[in-house]
């Protein structure tokens, strides 16, 4: 399963190959907005071409359109090809029961541009009203979502 948004796949490929406007040059890489990235949670499965259906605003901890802002602490940066773990700090919300299932996520810029996406392992995750859903945070390999290009 490819886990990168199609636009980003082309962004990476074109920046690392001689596809630029000047013959033989690489294309410019389009960086994400310099702002706090976020995790968007969905009740349906995201794909490489589009995000799933975002959760509605919950009792607490999750607001539709805002998602989980990851601004408290940055993830540990990749080094020598290592994976990046997301989130660094555990993120959680208290469910209002609508919907009751969490299926997938999208890692987005502050401007809601998608980078990576994926289904939660074991999805759909049913979260009854009043219960808390959380994605485990941690440094590097301890985080609940591991993103790798190798």
């Amino acid at each position, binding site marked *: *399963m*490819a886990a*990168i948004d199609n636009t980003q796949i082309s962004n990476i490929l074109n920046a690392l190959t001689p596809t630029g406007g000047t013959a033989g040059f690489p294309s410019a890489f389009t960086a994400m907005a310099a702002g706090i990235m976020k995790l968007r949670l969905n009740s349906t499965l995201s794909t490489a071409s589009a995000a799933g259906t975002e959760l509605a605003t919950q009792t607490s901890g999750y607001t539709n359109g805002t998602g989980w802002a990851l601004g408290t602490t940055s993830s540990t940066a990749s080094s020598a090809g290592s994976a990046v773990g997301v989130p660094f700090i555990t993120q959680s919300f208290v469910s209002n029961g609508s919907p009751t299932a969490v299926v997938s996520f999208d890692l987005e810029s502050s401007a809601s541009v998608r980078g990576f996406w994926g*289904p*939660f*392992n*074991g999805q759909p995750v049913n979260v009854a009203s009043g219960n*808390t*859903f*959380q994605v485990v945070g941690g440094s590097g390999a301890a985080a609940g979502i591991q993103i790798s290009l190798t």
Partner: protein
Amino acid sequence: MSDTAQEPAGWQVLDPDGNVVAAGPQTVLDASADAGQEQ
């Protein structure tokens, strides 16, 4: 001593008392692993 590898936790569902009622392993996005296999 157990030789069973402990799979890192990825997500949890807690009841209002903080008890874990469900949990799942990490979600691993290996973006290049299945390159060429996608239909």
